[in-house]
């Protein structure tokens, strides 16, 4: 049993982080929840401004908003899975290479590209495979119904910042896989498959899972790129939030926007509920 002093010391190391998050993250989320649960724009005389209400939350779970949430989830899951797989393999390929400058260049380029998005990224793809784009005909020769301003179009663009993100977060773990372990395994008569099954896989899986989760979250929160590409024809909860809170058409519905934002926090909670048990099992795999 760890002594009380040691435990207190450990808590002392953790409390600054928790305190900081409570203020810098907790306060804005509190403000979001508060706004979501109160009326700012009463639609009929029986309601008064500022009264407590569930109306915003219920609206956000129906109709076009529900569709937006569903499409967002579908898009995020799909792009996250693809980017995680490709990114993992790319990170493996990069970790294997010997050139130090090459690795640094790729690492830093990944950092920059992982944050590249919005209208500039949309324009890069419009210039390439949008209508009038140079390479559109090439793509359409293998994929006749492809169009950039659809769900598939957005799904083609998102990995542009998701794959670098995956590379960046799994490269440290892949770097940690020492080449000696592979040789040792081969020396003992193990095949590659066995190496990955018993050594490499368990070590890599938590980092890969974490990277996937990061990709999913990043994909879910993105909105400017999809907005520029699809004019709202692909409903996403994040573009809906932006239209309400920071748009030129809808006014006075900030409470609904905040309710939608709170839904994203709920999504996060659900994801955690799925992810944490998975991670526990992966830890057990390592011990087995």
């Amino acid at each position, binding site marked *: 049993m760890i002594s009380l002093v040691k435990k207190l010391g450990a808590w002392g190391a953790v409390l600054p982080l928790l305190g900081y998050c409570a203020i810098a993250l907790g306060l804005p989320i509190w403000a979001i929840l508060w706004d979501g649960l109160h009326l700012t724009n009463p639609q009929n005389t029986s309601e008064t401004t500022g009264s407590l209400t569930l109306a915003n939350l219920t609206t956000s779970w129906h109709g076009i908003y529900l569709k937006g949430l569903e499409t967002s989830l579908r898009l995020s899951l799909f792009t996250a899975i693809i980017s995680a797989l490709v990114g993992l393999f790319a990170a493996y390929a990069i970790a294997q290479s010997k050139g130090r400058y090459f690795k640094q260049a790729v690492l830093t380029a990944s950092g920059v590209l992982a944050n590249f998005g919005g209208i500039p990224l949309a324009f890069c793809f419009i210039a390439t495979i*949008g209508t009038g784009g140079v390479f559109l005909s090439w793509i359409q020769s293998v994929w006749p119904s492809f169009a950039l301003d659809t769900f598939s179009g957005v799904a083609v663009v998102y990995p542009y910042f998701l794959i670098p993100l995956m590379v960046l977060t799994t490269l440290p773990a892949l770097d940690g896989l020492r080449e000696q372990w592979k040789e040792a395994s081969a020396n003992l008569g193990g095949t590659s498959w066995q190496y990955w099954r018993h050594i490499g896989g368990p070590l890599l899986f938590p980092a890969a899972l974490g990277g996937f989760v990061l990709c999913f979250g990043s994909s879910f929160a993105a909105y400017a790129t999809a907005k520029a590409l699809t004019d709202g024809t692909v409903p996403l909860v994040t573009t809906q939030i932006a239209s309400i809170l920071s748009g030129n058409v809808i*006014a006075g519905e900030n409470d609904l926007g905040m309710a939608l934002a709170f839904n994203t926090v709920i999504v996060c909670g659900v994801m955690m509920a799925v992810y944490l048990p998975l991670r526990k099992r992966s830890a057990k795999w390592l011990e087995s």
Partner: protein
Amino acid sequence: MHRITKLACAAAAVTLAASACSSNSSTTSSGSGSTNWATVTSASAGGGMTALIAAAKAEGSLNVIALPPTWANYGTLMAEFKAKYGITVNDANPNGSSGDEINAIEHDKGLATAPDVVDVGNSHALPNTNLFSDYEVSTWANIPAGLKDANGSWYGDYGGYISIGCVAAKVAPAPCPTTFAELLDSSYTADYKGKVSLDGDPTSANAAFSGVWAAALASGGSLSNIQPGISYFGKLKSNGEFNATGDTESTIEAGSTDITIDWEYLNSQYASDLKSKGITMSVAIPTDGLYSAYYDQAISKYAPHPAAARLWEEFLYSAEGQNGFMGGYARPVEFAAMQSAGTLDATDEKLLPTVSGSVSYPTESELTTAQNAVTSGWATALG
């Protein structure tokens, strides 16, 4: 590790020290003398234009928000204002939206960087009169009655009609469309394929929302029924003609959006810019779907520079300011009055596309109904 950490610690220390030492004036600057310009409702009530100019100069700067320099010639107008009165114009968040402007008024009270004046669409001006200060410019009578608030809370400044811009060379052999009906003409469908665009998402961009409304008016809808407009674009999409990429000058130049349904002042600005790139773009106002909207000026109730704010309004509504808008291809709100008085800039006037027919403007409730219809119907009709 040492060198990096030394650098980091030094940088952190410097920045923390800098932020601690820098002072920030947060009190609102009061006007000179005894006039509290924050409550003055007209120049004459405050002691005349000379007093206003003196008070504004004393304040020294003006905070505007969300004014792109190439939108309705705002860049030139801000520069002219500065040159004329020596007052610095701080343009925050130039790509911001009307929603950002209202948010800024609500949340930035007490900050020296709070916005003094805003330029918002009707959808954001009408419901937020409690955030604005009443003020009537000297040329108040020249503003048409339907385009200003009776109490002086907000007032239209410039506007335009929804137009159809078109790069003739790219849609040939089909002609450039001049009506909404032409866009659905089956003989031109192949030529228009993938080329028709709006200026963004109708639930978020005013120009796109207005484009849908103009299409509604052309398809049997009215100011109280925007649904035919949504169906119109649904049909365009199923024909393969609609390109959901929002049009910008870059996308037109890249050849992605050759037909743009947008405000006439934006299309005309693009046309004039693209001429030097060897691209000829025409701008036509559709005869079957006449929709126009004016943006509104308003002074924030919590403006840190109330005198400068009022001087800015006086400037925008003078002949100089109104002609300035026209230089950016927008229709100044005092157009009719200036035409009779002969103060319109003749050269700029000729640049405006011809319009035949009259328009009326939607009421606040009609706006809300239309917004709700578009929010729930757009993605379903076009998804």
